[in-house]
């Protein structure tokens, strides 16, 4: 049971970070390998606020998300925008270059070591039920992720903004024709995606650690979530993250010899049989 719980918690964390990617990759059709870099920025902002400025943890989380979103918007307006119409290869190369630069920059400012993070007292400790030990922080993580999943689902499928976004993605020309400001929608969406990455990165410091190698270490996981869940589908990302989290934790616990092999194998098999993912809206372009 505890393993299942830990699996769910790590799946939720994964969801939190990769749902942002699902938004940019899935809805805007931009292969953004630099997503992990945004998560890393969020993590560093959070750690810096916490350790150097003494901001409380709960306040530093939204600040991390906002700072990351700001970075995201600046980059979107200056660079990403030029590549919306480019081939996937160009987008991959472009985002790899961002990853390289962000890794070096973080190493320059913070050094290569792991960043320490001390949680506030009320998030430490465990809740013990018969047969189940739950870390309070993990519980907190699960609750936050569920709230965000619900909010996002509402946002995309239930609001005017969501409708405009879907219209802009499906047919930018027609959307422009009916008076939707497509550029603004894309900028906002990108900001949303990076804010989620920043939030996820900040919350993940405790479980994933934080060092300049972060973007490369975990980007594969984020991509897997989006690829398996079906790009652009929030429910899909949630289900995929949960599967991935549970399989990963259980696999590492029961059969440590094979490590992460299972995940990659599952992903490849998945993609071969359902290239559009579990809940894909349509096959990738």
């Amino acid at each position, binding site marked *: 049971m505890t393993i299942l719980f830990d699996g769910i918690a790590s799946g939720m964390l994964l969801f939190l970070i990769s749902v942002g990617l699902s938004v940019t990759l899935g809805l805007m059709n931009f*292969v953004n390998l630099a997503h992990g870099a945004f998560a890393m920025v969020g993590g560093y902002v959070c750690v810096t606020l916490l350790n150097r400025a003494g901001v409380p943890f709960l306040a530093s989380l939204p600040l991390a998300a906002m700072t990351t979103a700001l970075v995201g918007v600046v980059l979107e307006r200056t*660079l990403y925008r*030029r*590549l919306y119409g480019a*081939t*996937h*290869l*160009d987008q*991959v*190369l*472009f985002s*790899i*270059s*961002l*990853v*390289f*630069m*962000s*890794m*070096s*920059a973080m*190493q*320059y400012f913070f050094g*290569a070591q792991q960043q320490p993070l001390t949680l506030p007292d009320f998030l430490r400790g465990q809740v013990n039920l018969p047969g189940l030990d739950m870390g309070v922080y993990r519980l907190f993580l699960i609750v936050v992720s569920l709230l965000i999943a619900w909010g996002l689902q509402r946002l995309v499928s239930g609001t005017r903004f969501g409708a405009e976004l879907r219209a802009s993605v499906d047919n930018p020309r027609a959307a422009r024709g009916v008076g939707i400001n497509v550029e603004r929608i894309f900028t906002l969406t990108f900001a949303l995606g990076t804010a989620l990455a920043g939030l996820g990165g900040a919350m993940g410091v405790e479980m994933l650690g934080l060092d300049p190698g972060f973007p*490369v270490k975990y980007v*594969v996981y984020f*991509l*897997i979530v989006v*690829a398996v869940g079906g*790009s652009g589908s929030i429910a899909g990302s949630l289900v995929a993250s949960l599967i991935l989290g549970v399989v990963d934790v259980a696999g590492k616990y029961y059969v440590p*010899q*094979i*490590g*992460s*092999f299972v995940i*990659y*194998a599952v*992903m*490849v098999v998945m*993609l*071969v049989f359902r*290239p559009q993912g579990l809940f894909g809206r349509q*096959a*990738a*372009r």
Partner: protein
Amino acid sequence: MKSSTIDLTVVRRCDRWRPAELVFWLLPVLGYFLFPDNLVLLTQIAITGLFCLSLDLILGYAGIVSLGHAAFFGVGAYAAGLLASHGWGEPLSGLLVAAVVSAALGFVTSLLVLRGADLTRLMVTLGVAMMLFEVANKLTAITGGVDGLQGMEMLPLFGQFRFDMVGKTAYWYAVLVLFFLFWSARKLVHSPFGLSLKGIRLNVARMPALGAPVNARLAAVYTLGAAYAGVAGALMAQTTQFVALDVLSFNRSAELLLILVLGGSGSLYGALIGTMVFMSAHHVLSDMNPEYWQFWLGALLLVIVLFARDGVMGGLRRAAARIPLLSGGAK
């Protein structure tokens, strides 16, 4: 091709060796005499050049996007390394075995890769490479895991030339293999097969109408690219007599893409020139500030993607077009 009769002279002329190319192939000889102390680096350049060439075949010519090309490099390296550490130290047969093993893997994975579109291909190639990385990481008894594979003993090349400490034999060995494989690749891309690949990249829908079996062609070139990468890996293993786990890493695949784009994909010389520029820059920059050279690397790539999509080769081609003597009838 507006004329009704098919004029093949254009195609034939492409196949002819131009003077500039002969000059290019004097560079390895020149390098040998100019930098006798840096032969190890030069060998690395030759090997990476071959590796980059293999990616160029599948990406630049056939248009298959791969984020996991290191898989084949690594498999070739381990194949040759394991052979050598288990007493089969003959280099050429080692290369051959590595090529066959990687080609087999390439063929099998090509069946998976070719099913999807760009994005799926990215993920599948990446997934395959990561799987192999995990396998190599965990099978410590066979591969040495994180510590790397050691204890290789190479027999002299052709029974004549020992692999010496300075790396003279290794250098010539790598350069000659590179030249031979380059020459074959050059033949290939100018053959009808190579032209059909270009056609597939430019217009997938049209090629079946012209009678070209798209999937079979792509599978063939993917397998070939895998074999090339395997040979490059094997060369690496044999010349350094060590296989590190990072031969399979994501970084290596990503870096290779970068090198190819730097040089200009879709041109065989682009792959080689990209490697030369990249490796030299790496050498110089990482000497200057070892930790942050990646930053400049990223910045460079950014500039290339945004402003100079065809890389160094495109720049050269534009420059050459201004000088009629050099262009030698190129378009």
